[in-house]
């Protein structure tokens, strides 16, 4: 009996799991190639686990959408806003307040960063409010 149940469970788990949400699907396709599935990045790509360092600091919320990978992703404003809400919750530990809206994201991505790494260091040096 146990063996039969175990086999059934194994067969269920052996089937490739589906992306649970459009946010996860969009993360895998648009972010995880460079930031990796777990967000750990590589020697040339910053880890998403470093997001709490900027969390709460002035400019961080805007910066996260303005980084080239997010701003230039081939996603609609609404899909990018949903993805960012999901991503900030996952890697910075809390949902952005207020949540990103399509309008806000649309405004931010038309205003690209000239020096993303420089801007990041600038935000990190400021104290949070």
């Amino acid at each position, binding site marked *: 009996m146990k063996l039969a149940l175990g086999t059934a469970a194994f067969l269920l788990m052996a089937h490739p799991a589906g992306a649970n949400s459009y946010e*996860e699907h969009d993360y895998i*396709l648009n972010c995880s190639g460079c930031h*990796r599935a777990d967000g750990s990045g590589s020697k040339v790509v910053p880890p998403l686990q470093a997001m709490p360092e900027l969390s709460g600091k002035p400019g961080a919320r805007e910066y996260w959408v303005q980084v080239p990978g997010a701003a230039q992703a081939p996603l609609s404003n609404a899909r990018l806003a949903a993805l960012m809400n999901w991503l900030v919750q996952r890697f910075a530990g809390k949902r952005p307040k207020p949540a990103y809206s399509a309008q806000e994201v649309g405004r931010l991505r038309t205003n690209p960063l000239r020096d993303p790494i420089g801007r990041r260091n600038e935000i990190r040096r400021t104290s949070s409010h």
Partner: protein
Amino acid sequence: MSRLDRWFEGMTRQSARRVSRRNWLSRFGGVLVGGAALPLLPVARAAEKHTVGEDGVKGREGDPTRCEYWRHCAIDGFLCSCCGGSHTACPPGTQMSPVTWIGTCRNPAEGKDYIISYNDCCGKTFCGRCMCNRNEGERPLYHWYRNNDINWCGGAKAQTYSCSTAVVVKAAKEAQPEK
């Protein structure tokens, strides 16, 4: 659980009382032979003829050494399955690049889309066998993280490109391009 156990026990004891061993053996043998003979029936054979495998070739299994294999729909490079590795593993002596380009492909056997990660294998000179360049859903170079013309070995220890794999990450929510 114990109710199920009790039910099975009851059934087993009952059949042990009522059915002789020879009867059981003859029936079991019939099922075995009948099951094996089923695919020989003309109906089953006709159905088999129309089975189209994963890469459009006849038969159930696709062939990962062919460019037409369904997972290769957005690949650009040498197939690792022709280079001493497989479509999910690098050949000996090479390292799989941690950064990669990711796309979606439809598995024609079930009509579902899957997210495929085209991790490059790096560290030995290029393989040169089974060149495959299909690029479905690939983005132009200015969307570099959705482009397969760049050398994704940039994230590996050695940047020499050898061949490409096609690993299923998950079932996709939708096919590329996004709506």
